[in-house]
């Protein structure tokens, strides 16, 4: 009898844990993030003043969330994105706007972000804000992140989901790609993204 109740308790516990699990992909739970729906707007700070997503109507936007002290994931993703962009024709590049939003606002000021991103590509825009505002944006985009404390807090890391969110020139979330995507698949997706412009305007 005792064991049986333990077993039931265990099953309940497992169910609770499973129900609280985060989705593998950012779209599955919230219909507002589904492809072809309007991408949630935001207004955040760049080193040249406030920037909103709606400022880039007419351009394809590539959104990426991360932090400058990220030792492996972010530099790898940003490097792939840079290479994909550089391999595209100039005209296509001009119709694309890569935006990096920080998950570590206490460290990543707009000027620090700008300095960091310049290293990768001159067109990158880096955005920061206060915790509260960023909380809202990350929620809207289903970014899951959590500080991963180290024995010495100077070396804290942030676990995070890493996707490129591709937003069409008319402001719809077109698709999202994992940061480990190849240069080739990213390149293909980006030129498709810009082509949707003509389609949507017809």
């Amino acid at each position, binding site marked *: 009898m005792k064991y049986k109740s333990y077993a039931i308790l265990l099953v309940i516990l497992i169910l609770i844990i499973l129900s609280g699990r985060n989705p593998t992909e950012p779209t599955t739970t919230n219909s507002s993030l589904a492809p072809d729906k309007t991408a949630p707007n935001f207004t955040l700070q760049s080193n040249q003043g406030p920037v909103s997503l709606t400022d880039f109507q007419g351009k394809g936007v590539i959104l990426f969330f991360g932090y400058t002290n990220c*030792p492996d994931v972010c*530099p790898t993703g940003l490097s792939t994105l840079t290479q994909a962009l550089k391999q595209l024709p100039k005209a296509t590049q001009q119709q694309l706007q890569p935006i990096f939003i920080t998950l570590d606002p206490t460290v990543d000021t707009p000027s620090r972000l700008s300095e*960091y991103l310049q290293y990768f590509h001159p067109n990158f825009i880096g955005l920061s804000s206060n915790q509260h505002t960023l909380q809202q944006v990350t929620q809207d985009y289903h970014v899951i992140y*959590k500080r991963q404390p180290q024995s010495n807090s100077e070396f804290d890391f942030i676990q995070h989901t890493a996707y490129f969110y591709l937003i069409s020139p008319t402001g719809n979330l077109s698709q999202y790609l994992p940061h480990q995507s190849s240069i080739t698949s990213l390149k293909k997706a980006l030129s498709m993204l810009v082509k949707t412009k003509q389609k949507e305007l017809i």
Partner: protein
Amino acid sequence: MKTLISSALLLSSLFIATPSLACDDHKLEVSGSYVREMPPASKNTAAYMQLKNTTDKPLKLLEVQSDIAKKIELHNIVNVDGVLKMQPQPYIEIAANDTLTLKPGGYHVMIMGVKKQLKQGEDVKMTLKFEGGMTKDLTAPVKSIVPKSAKAGHSGT
């Protein structure tokens, strides 16, 4: 006379024995090692390499030492429900007669609190320490992961 010869032999054997204990080159081969160039404003980086174990026993990499940073750890990146998590590893095991690749998004040597921003063209000296006391010294070049057109790439000429 006899003691002199034997002590000379003993002495020379000591000399021969010491280096082979410190650096068992034939047991482990390192190739393709590099340290990722650091973007401005960042203070962390990582080293990547291929480790080839030529013995028929597993080898455990326990530690990497270098004086370029405040702290160096062995890490792996694991994907937990889409969230990428860095996990410190107590050791990295290279299976018998096998090669393990430390690469972006996987096992890596985590270099934290780098004292001076590392630039492409520089070299980083480090020592790998294995279980059983074997060590391996290594000089890894600093490499940029961002292609700089016509600058220091191998497609230049």
